[in-house]
């Protein structure tokens, strides 16, 4: 395999990892706030903070890993995206910063102020929305290169149906993934009221998820014909995605196998995300850079791949340890430790 394919695969896997773990986190923020204003916070907030507090920093590192890796494997991407994403990127950083500091408050603040809960909930929806603009821009049509200068066409971006359908999809997916995970976690914790509530949320957010996926598909066909047709060629991946979605929904509806149901949700997004990504190739930024044209030199490519493999040997055992301590340690989950 060539370095550009290895590179983009590694990055895409990490972005997928971020999509899952961050969605759980972002969605939880929204649910925590929603539960507070509907006076149901006593039911779920303890559950949420027990799971999220130990892992939020790990979630953030997934994101850092992605953008550092992108610059490493595809230095030209730093140039094009860097030049154009200054404003959306900065806004995303500020939102992430507000959210990150929430955890410090959450753990040690004397009482939870409602402004802060509001920010926590709101950032949970705004961050996915602002990060998803990077994917929208990568489709092309929003960047102009004239006399050696690259700039973002903000007007086009804000009025494009495609761009808004992506934002909508990002938000509802976050809520769906998060609700499905928290259903599973509540079940492990044997917390009946929380389980009931989260199960209701999961079922509720499932239909917007599927509607948003369809609208994005249609908007894509208007915006980037090439990408759309590539995706049609990969129809089986999207077919599998829908099948896993239905399977997950069935289990949750029948109130059984919540763990398996969440794994099916993960597969649902795995196939959709990789189908989307594979259709996007070879472009990193349509039509300016492809993975071949922007890939780093071979020496550095090899060094990064070696570093990556060595890093995995360190990370995977540590991650397993963390999961055994917090996710699969039944006593911890139930709040006895």
């Amino acid at each position: 395999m060539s370095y550009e394919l290895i590179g983009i695969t590694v990055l895409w896997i990490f972005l997928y990892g971020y999509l899952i773990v961050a969605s759980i986190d972002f969605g939880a923020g929204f649910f925590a706030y929603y539960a507070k204003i509907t006076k149901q916070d006593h039911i779920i907030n303890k559950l949420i903070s027990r799971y999220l507090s130990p892992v939020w920093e790990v979630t953030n590192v997934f994101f850092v890993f992605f953008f550092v890796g992108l610059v490493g494997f595809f230095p030209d991407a730093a140039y094009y995206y860097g030049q154009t994403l200054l404003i959306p990127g900065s806004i995303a950083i500020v939102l992430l910063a507000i959210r990150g500091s929430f955890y410090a408050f959450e753990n040690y603040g004397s009482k939870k102020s409602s402004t802060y809960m509001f920010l926590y909930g709101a950032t949970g929806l705004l961050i996915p929305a602002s990060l998803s603009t990077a994917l929208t821009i990568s489709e092309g049509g929003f960047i102009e290169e004239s006399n050696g200068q690259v700039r973002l066409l903000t007007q086009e971006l804000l009025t494009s149906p495609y761009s808004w359908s992506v934002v909508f999809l990002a938000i509802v997916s976050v809520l769906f993934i998060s609700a499905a995970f928290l259903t599973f976690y509540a079940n492990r914790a044997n917390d009946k009221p929380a389980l009931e509530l989260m199960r209701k949320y999961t079922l509720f957010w499932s239909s917007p998820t599927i509607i948003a996926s369809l609208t994005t598909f249609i908007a894509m066909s208007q915006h980037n014909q090439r990408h759309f047709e590539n995706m049609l060629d990969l129809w089986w991946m999207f077919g599998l995605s829908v099948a896993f979605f239905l399977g997950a929904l069935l289990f949750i509806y029948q109130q059984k196998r919540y763990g398996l149901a969440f794994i099916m949700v993960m597969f649902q997004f795995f196939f959709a995300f990789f189908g989307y990504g594979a259709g996007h190739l070879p472009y990193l930024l349509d039509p300016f850079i492809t993975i071949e044209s922007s890939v780093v030199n071979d020496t550095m490519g090899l060094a990064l791949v070696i570093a990556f493999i060595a890093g995995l040997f360190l990370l995977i055992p540590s991650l397993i340890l963390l999961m055994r301590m917090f996710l699969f340690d039944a006593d911890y989950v139930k709040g006895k430790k």
Partner: protein
Amino acid sequence: MMEFDSVIMSRMLTSLTLAFHIIFATVGVGIPVMVSIAEFIGIKKKDAHYTLLARRWTRGFVITVAVGVVTGTAIGLQLSLLWPSFMQVAGNVISLPLFLETFAFFFEAIFLGAYLYTWDRFKNPIYHWLLSIPVVIGSSMSAFFITTVNAFMNTPQGFELEGRTITSIDPLAAMFNPATPTKVFHVISSSYLTSAAILAAITAFYIIKKKATPYHKKALKLTMMATFIFAVTTAVAGDLSAKFLAKEQPEKLAAAEWHFETEKGADLILFGTLNEENEVENAIRIPNALSFLAHGSFDSEVTGLDKIEEDVTPPLWIHYMFDLMVMLGMYAMGVSFLYIVLSKLKRWNENNKWLLWLIVLNGPFAMLAIEFGWIFAEVGRQPWILRGYMKVAEGATTSPHVDWMFLLFLGLYILLGVFCVTVLRKLFRNNPVELELEQRYPNISNRGDDE
């Protein structure tokens, strides 16, 4: 003019973010070491005071980590957003340590989560202590990796540049460039020093305001010993850094020392002012000391600014940054030495109010030394972003909106700073040591009169 503006604004925004991040990064590197030492002593001596110390430090640490992580994420993204052309080149040559750094973060983050939430989960406390080791390794390694990148900017190597194409790349040579050893040593050592000094300052402040309980006396003794040891290693590392500069980056040393003429037996100039003819006035001169600092012997020759072309001479005001950093370093060494001497002499009381106030000052002073040191190192590299290859102005973004982003981030950092201080104060005020000792370790005495 447009382009000029975005360069200035990019520099200001980068400086702002780094100056803020470095505060939290420094304690992020140093405090895990202090926590690990305290917990270890607690286990060895079976002294719950030390265990509680580790526990309480960790709790404050979590809050500074949160700010460190979010500002670090900001600077990581800003490097691409503000310096796209620089990152395009850097990505080809120096992305290896940046990439490795994220693994160090991962490692640290995983074990920090495990460390925080498992204080009472193990029968044998040594297992819990073992969890602190990967945190120490992870944070010090992340300092190591990012510092190699900064070293590379000062003495780039491991590639060849022909026009805009880069060839003959050697990632390891780029990472282990001539600046790496001294820089890494100095940065890590000064982080340990600063963290110890800040923890000592907080303890001393408490003793002044309330009273000297055995818990606080032990804390002060431990942190002051650490301050002294790390002050000595930092000074050694600083001396090595100066010798490195004399050899590889003479213009930075010459500008920092206001050394205009190349000569043997050069004097060291402390503070002072420059008149219109660039002559030094009002300064303290230490004969031949600069030659010693630069090459280790009093009559060696030191390159002066006369050998450096005018358009690549760094700004001369970095002289003050250098002097202030060194002074504050000497202060840290002096205060901790005084404390240790007084505690050995039976006749004297090391918990005397005057000395305690000097220790309180030492905390903020050490952090200031870090800031001055970085400003000296970064401004001393001007006008280069990659010394000899790329100037700062060629690396910057051309986006016209950086000024608004500057205001946005200024607001964010003010908010984060205020928030961090408020939460830390609340945290310790609502949960005083006495109470926690009684609850967790009811059979240990902490009255001040039982020694």
